């Protein structure tokens, strides 16, 4: 119980700290501007105007959500070490793993609040422009929330041992590769080399498949999304998050705070 309480306390304080970040508000502002400008961009099209609005708006939410996750997440642990606020926290009955989990949950809570604001903007724009909203839109936004949780987990991992610049570079790299994971096998098969093919198969297994959380097309075209698939994607997201946080805690446990 003491451990849970420590995690909760650190998470609440992280949320309180994170909502003061100017970067977060700048990115949130631009995401809302992008969502609103989807109406203007859709005006250039003669067909499927509502779908273009949905496509641009949901893609903006994904992009800016990931940007907030990475740029706030990479400084998450590093800043605590740099400022030495971690000294007084770890001298209390708080394990390093609890500290990492608390920081992670605090940032996820921050992101989900931002996501809720962006989703409200999206739903309002759709409503005002006659786009039909279905359960697919809610599922798409929900899976963006899962994807962002995974992104924050690996940003936290990189933040636990690297400087913010390096952590941001690693996180952006992994985010981009994570969206190409499904193409890796195709690239390997097309290479004609057995070594490359087996390497790409292993990479596909090792790297997170972030495109699994992308249900934007189904939401736009009102296609059915089987609940089993949503459940599997949710479990996949949880598994990746746990794996990244476990590595982060393991790495952090071995550090000396000089």
């Amino acid at each position, binding site marked *: 119980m*003491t451990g849970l309480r420590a995690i909760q306390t650190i998470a609440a*304080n992280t949320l309180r700290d994170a909502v003061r970040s100017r970067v977060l508000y700048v990115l949130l502002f631009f995401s809302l501007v992008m969502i609103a400008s989807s109406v203007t961009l859709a005006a250039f099209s003669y067909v499927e105007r509502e779908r273009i609005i949905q496509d641009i708006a949901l893609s903006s939410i994904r992009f800016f959500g990931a940007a907030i996750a990475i740029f706030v997440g990479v400084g998450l642990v590093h800043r605590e070490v740099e400022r*030495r*606020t971690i*000294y*007084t926290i*770890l*001298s209390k009955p708080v394990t390093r793993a609890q500290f990492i989990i608390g920081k992670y949950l605090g940032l996820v809570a921050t992101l989900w609040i931002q996501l809720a604001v962006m989703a409200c903007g999206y739903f309002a724009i759709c409503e005002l422009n006659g786009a039909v909203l279905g359960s697919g839109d809610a599922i798409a936004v929900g899976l963006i929330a899962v994807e962002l949780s995974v992104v924050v987990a690996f940003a936290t991992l990189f933040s636990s041992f690297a400087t913010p610049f390096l952590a941001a570079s690693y996180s952006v790299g992994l985010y981009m590769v994570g969206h190409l994971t499904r193409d890796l096998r195709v690239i390997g098969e097309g290479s004609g080399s057995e070594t490359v093919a087996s390497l790409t198969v292993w990479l596909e297994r090792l790297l997170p498949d972030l495109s699994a959380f992308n249900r934007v097309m189904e939401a736009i075209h009102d296609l059915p999304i089987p609940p089993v698939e949503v459940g599997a994607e949710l479990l996949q997201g949880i598994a990746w998050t746990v794996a990244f946080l476990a590595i982060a805690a393991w790495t952090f446990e071995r550090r*000396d*705070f000089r």
Partner: protein
Amino acid sequence: MTPEAIVRVEGLVKDFRPGFGRRKTRVLKGIDFEVREGEVFGFIGPNGAGKTTTLKVLMGLIHATAGDARVLGHPVTESAYRASIGYAPESPYFYDFLTGREILDFYARLTAVPDALRADRVAEILEQVGLTHAADARLRTYSKGMLQRIGIAQAVVHDPSVVFLDEPMSGLDPVGRKEVRDLIVALNRAGKTIMMNTHILHDVEMICDRVAIIVDGSIAYEGVIDGFDSAGEKIYDVTLASLAPDFVEEIATGLDVAPSGRGERVTFRVPEKDVNGLVESALRRGGRLLEVLGHRSDLEALFLSTVNECKENGEGSA
């Protein structure tokens, strides 16, 4: 482990590797010391001697390369027992967007102070460190002395039995130093064992019961500050006046330390059992008693001779 040993360090070694491919540096070279229950223990040494590294090992912030370090009988790698200890780092930095009251509430939550007691406990500690007036001001508006006091307050908000302080008087003006010193004495009187890292010898002389001197990663001295003779008896400085020179000579022949004097005042350093006899015979011979004080070692002389001896030997004599 002796029952009264609250902190026990044995053969503690710490190596740092400055960077990939570089040779490691041995910062702690197998140090041993112990802190006993109820004492104020001064851990002193020159800059870079290993004081803060030792304290960080005790706090679990740095992993020891070898050796054993225990606090309250627990290995320092454990976490749960830290509910019974407090730590104030050197030049502490806190979340400056929080107020004094909020930061103490944060630490009280981390140390599982019960909800029903937390607000009262925070108010009590703020009162104790003299920050009630600034309780609801953001920490970014606090002076260095106020932050130092908040640092001590967060270390004791959960009422620990042992408190570790890293350079608690560092960077403070004389008023701030006195306030922090008084606070440490008050905590000790309240029953807390205190280990304090510092290089301000005057403060150590005033409040510490025992000291360890660390030089270049080795313990060069560990012992009391108050004077005791070889039999472990307390030593006193007895200052007398109006004494005949032959009387002074007569007494001096039986003493280990020659009497020191200024004008007609002469100070004799004698063990406790000889104080009454000396005073009575001096009064009989027409002398006057000016003062009797418990002798305190000249820490600065001890410190400098220890450091110089270590430099001459090339290392600390652990």
